[in-house]
């Protein structure tokens, strides 16, 4: 039987006060698609990290800008695309230092990226700074019987 794909979208002003709304949106998607509680929590957090990065770095906390979250669900996975038109970055330049090194250096950068990669099955970027940046994350769904 062909898999039925469903798409849901949320567009919010680029302000961290909207992160809770984004998490609620993603949580509903995860729960409805049949994920367990811990996987829903991972999905929620990965998307929060991606959107926080956009709000604080790509848009420099400019709340007149917009962050778009698009969720595509089919029988095998949940795909989340976080889209912005901010300044973007080079994903290869983001270091993944050890936690103790971050503490010693008084830096917390890179933690969000580490969480996204740990919590999702796939993380991809497509950057066209100032035009369109898209972060795509995929979480596979548990196989259903039948």
């Amino acid at each position: 039987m062909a898999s039925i794909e469903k798409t849901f979208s949320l567009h919010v002003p680029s302000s961290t006060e909207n992160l809770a709304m984004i998490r609620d949106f993603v949580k509903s998607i995860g729960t409805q698609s049949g994920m367990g509680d811990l996987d829903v929590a991972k999905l929620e957090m990965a998307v929060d990290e991606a959107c926080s990065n956009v709000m604080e770095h790509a848009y420099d906390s400019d709340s007149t800008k917009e962050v778009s979250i698009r969720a595509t669900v089919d029988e095998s996975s949940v795909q989340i695309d976080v889209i912005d038109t901010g300044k973007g970055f080079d994903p290869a330049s983001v270091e993944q230092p050890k936690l103790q090194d971050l503490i010693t250096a008084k830096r917390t950068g890179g933690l969000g990226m580490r969480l996204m990669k740990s919590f999702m099955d796939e993380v991809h970027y497509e950057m066209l700074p100032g035009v369109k940046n898209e972060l795509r994350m995929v979480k596979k769904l548990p196989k259903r019987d039948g």
Partner: protein
Amino acid sequence: MANPFSIHKSEEQGLVVLSLEGYLDAHTAPEFEKAVETEYEAGRVRLVVECSRLTYISSAGLGVFMSFIDEIRGAGGDIKICGLAPKVFQVFDILGFSALFDIVPDLPAAVQRYEDAPVKET
């Protein structure tokens, strides 16, 4: 909308207990940062962060623990973390916080931990 995050401060056998409620994300982390900073600047460095009513934490919240721990330990104190719900604990654990911070089940265990190991032994 209800306040998404709050901090209740109390004292327990000479320790400062900061009980967190709600969610700790990029929006609410500055409030937590200010609370820890206030204690540190007042010389109160034996802290317990009680998280049984914390429903969510992101890297912004974790960053607060990271940014103060060296100074607080340097001043002879520590931050003991207790009461984490499983979904919150998985975040601490996956990032390796368990190796660097004392994470214990509840407040009595945190108080006891200060007796046994005032600063986490790594």
